[in-house]
């Protein structure tokens, strides 16, 4: 997928001005956190589960080579085929080669963020194969030719009127006078449109939430059942996934699953959790004849042993998006690539480079809600700070900002000078603002004052008041 993360500021401004987006986000920013907190309250062990989830993932990452080799050998023993891919291109090529080997024309797809990451749909289409997204949200945005705006609710940026408009335009064979007002009617229409596609597809592609090393299994977690129809009906099932998804045992997978739905949607458990191991077995009446797994690296292995290793614990629940004030204001498209919100602000620079995605780790208030709700306790603000430091060290941030920071740090490292300046500045500003008690505009600070007033200091600096009290 082509990144537009460089344009974050313009994207964000457009998002803030988009009434439909703001209406859609208003529903999301209250709903998700409320449902999560209710689910967490009901489970006294939730905190212990987070700790356990973190340690499982840390253990896997420390021994990732061992678990991947074991996973591969067990998947192969079950009759599956594992395709390793270093890059997006290699992953796409592997999928195309499988599709061509069975003469596939149509593929159905369950939701896969890894498939989004490698730009699989565009690649297949360019090669004469029609990909059909079957998750309702993914289906809607595929019709609209938009990227997903959220990692578990890809069409969360839309209101129902926009969905209705899209369906009327794209489902042109249906009666134009049909009622299409309630979400119920739109779900029914999508169900009716997609059912024949499920039945006709030659290949079904899903993602994987987890891979189980012990058994060679892949696991998907869904609510709609589209992933199951996608992987059960066609002759070939391809799992698009990435190397950090592996866990040692089914017991470990279950522990993470107890965290996943509660963190994501506030459900106790998603409707469908499906553990798949190999193709159809002798005597089975249904299921795919071939089972392939495309295992993508795409820069992940290079994160091991760095400040960003913890990011590989991520189980893609989207709790950090759902609790982020920046995401809630600008929406997911502003981030300009596949992964938005706090997890995207850390992962995107890791995968496509800080030169491209430097705005993202800066688009944070560091309020820390993301880390506080993360089911595997990823220190997201800390890692965004690491990216800011690297951006500064590589001289990628704007000159004015860099000069300002240099001046500030020079002064801050000289406490006597700093205190003198601070005392002087608070007195001057206090005097200048004595009438209103706030400033509508300030030289060099219009980034602050164009959207809000700057409160005027009371006339003394904190340091001098503190020193006085200590006496």
């Amino acid at each position, binding site marked *: 997928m082509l990144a537009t993360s460089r344009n974050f500021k313009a994207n964000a401004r457009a998002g803030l001005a988009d009434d439909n987006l703001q209406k859609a986000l208003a529903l999301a920013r209250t709903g998700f956190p409320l449902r999560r907190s209710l689910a967490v309250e009901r489970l006294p062990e939730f905190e212990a589960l987070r700790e356990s989830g973190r340690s499982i993932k840390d253990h896997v990452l420390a021994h990732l*080579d061992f678990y991947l080799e074991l996973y591969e050998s067990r998947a192969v023993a079950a009759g599956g085929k594992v395709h390793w891919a270093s890059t997006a291109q290699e992953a796409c090529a592997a999928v195309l080669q499988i599709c061509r080997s069975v003469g596939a024309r149509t593929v159905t797809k369950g939701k896969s963020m890894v498939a989004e990451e490698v730009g699989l749909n565009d690649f297949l289409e360019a090669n004469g194969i029609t990909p059909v997204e079957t*998750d*309702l949200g993914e289906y809607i945005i595929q019709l609209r030719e938009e990227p997903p705006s959220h990692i578990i609710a890809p069409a969360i940026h839309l209101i129902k009127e926009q969905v209705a408009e899209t369906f009327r335009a794209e489902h042109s064979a249906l009666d134009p006078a049909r009622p299409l007002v309630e979400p*119920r009617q739109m779900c029914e229409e999508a169900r009716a449109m997609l059912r024949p596609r499920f039945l006709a597809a030659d290949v079904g592609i899903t993602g994987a939430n987890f891979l189980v090393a012990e058994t060679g299994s892949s696991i998907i977690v869904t609510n709609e059942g589209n992933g199951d129809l996608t992987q059960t009906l066609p002759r070939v099932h391809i799992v698009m996934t990435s190397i950090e998804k592996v866990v040692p*045992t089914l017991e470990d997978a279950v522990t993470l699953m107890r965290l996943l739905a509660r963190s994501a949607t506030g459900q106790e458990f998603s409707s469908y959790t499906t553990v798949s191991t190999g193709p159809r077995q002798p005597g089975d009446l249904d299921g795919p004849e071939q089972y392939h797994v495309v295992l993508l690296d795409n820069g992940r292995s290079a994160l091991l042993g*760095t400040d960003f290793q913890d990011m590989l614990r991520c189980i893609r629940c989207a709790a950090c998006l759902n609790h982020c004030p920046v995401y809630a204001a600008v929406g997911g498209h502003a981030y300009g690539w596949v992964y938005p919100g706090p997890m995207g602000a850390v992962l995107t620079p890791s995968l496509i480079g800080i030169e491209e995605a430097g705005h993202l780790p800066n688009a944070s208030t560091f309020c820390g809600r993301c880390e506080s709700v993360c089911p595997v306790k990823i220190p997201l603000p800390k890692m965004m700070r690491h990216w800011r430091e690297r951006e500064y060290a590589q001289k990628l941030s704007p000159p004015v900002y860099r000069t300002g920071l240099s001046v500030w740090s020079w002064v801050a490292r000289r406490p006597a000078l700093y205190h003198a300046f601070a005392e002087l500045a608070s007195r001057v500003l206090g005097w200048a603002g004595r009438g209103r008690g706030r400033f509508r505009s300030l030289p060099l600070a219009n980034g602050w004052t164009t959207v809000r007033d700057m409160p005027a200091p009371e006339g003394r600096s904190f340091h001098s008041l503190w020193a006085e009290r200590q006496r």
Partner: protein
Amino acid sequence: MTQTRERILAGIRTSLGRGPPDAHTLAELRSRLAARRRNVIPARAAALDECDRVDLFVAMAEEVQTTVARVVSPAMVPEEIARYLAAENLAAEIVAAPDPGLDAIPWEIRPLLRIRRGRAGADDKVSLTACHAAIAETGTLMLISGRHTPTTLNFLPETHIVIVRRGQVVATYEDAMDRLCAEGASRPLPRVINFITGPSRTADIEQHIELGAHGPRRLHIVLLDEAQATERVGEDEQRGAGGQ
């Protein structure tokens, strides 16, 4: 392909600053796997006796719009299914798993219930299956694929009816998976294990929860509670006779 594999594995080892795992580490990792150690287990279901566990299963299932009917004898199952289909205004035509576990039910007492055994097709409206286990923790059913238990039954029809025997209700996912091993089906696993918690749903349009996105719109459990049957033999026979 092999080159890519080696490159990725080598890259992982370089990043971790070590070579392939040594003998000691390998032994540790293998013993961790062999132990199949359980992690944190919620007390919610694990601490309950059988009776409360079954009640919790029913309560949790109903919370996610699964409907549950309790019956006390196999003879009541066809009756309950006929009642359910009539109440939902559905035709009395069912595709059922060719599962010997369903043979013990006296289907002949409801001759109008037309039952085909096999995998589900595009036109089947109602499916009937047994299950491998029922998990009280979240009201979740565990179904496995096999020659007698095709997966399409769980997803293609609009209505899925599942017969759960009281003895199949376990506390946790771990308990349910242990039953898989205890029955000699440990490895390789069945092609598919389906954990099913309520009917299909979506909230992709304005967070509005709609049932029946792509999978079944309705999930109905007939809970065969034979433990109660011993206390109610007389009543049971009367009802069975009434059904004929």
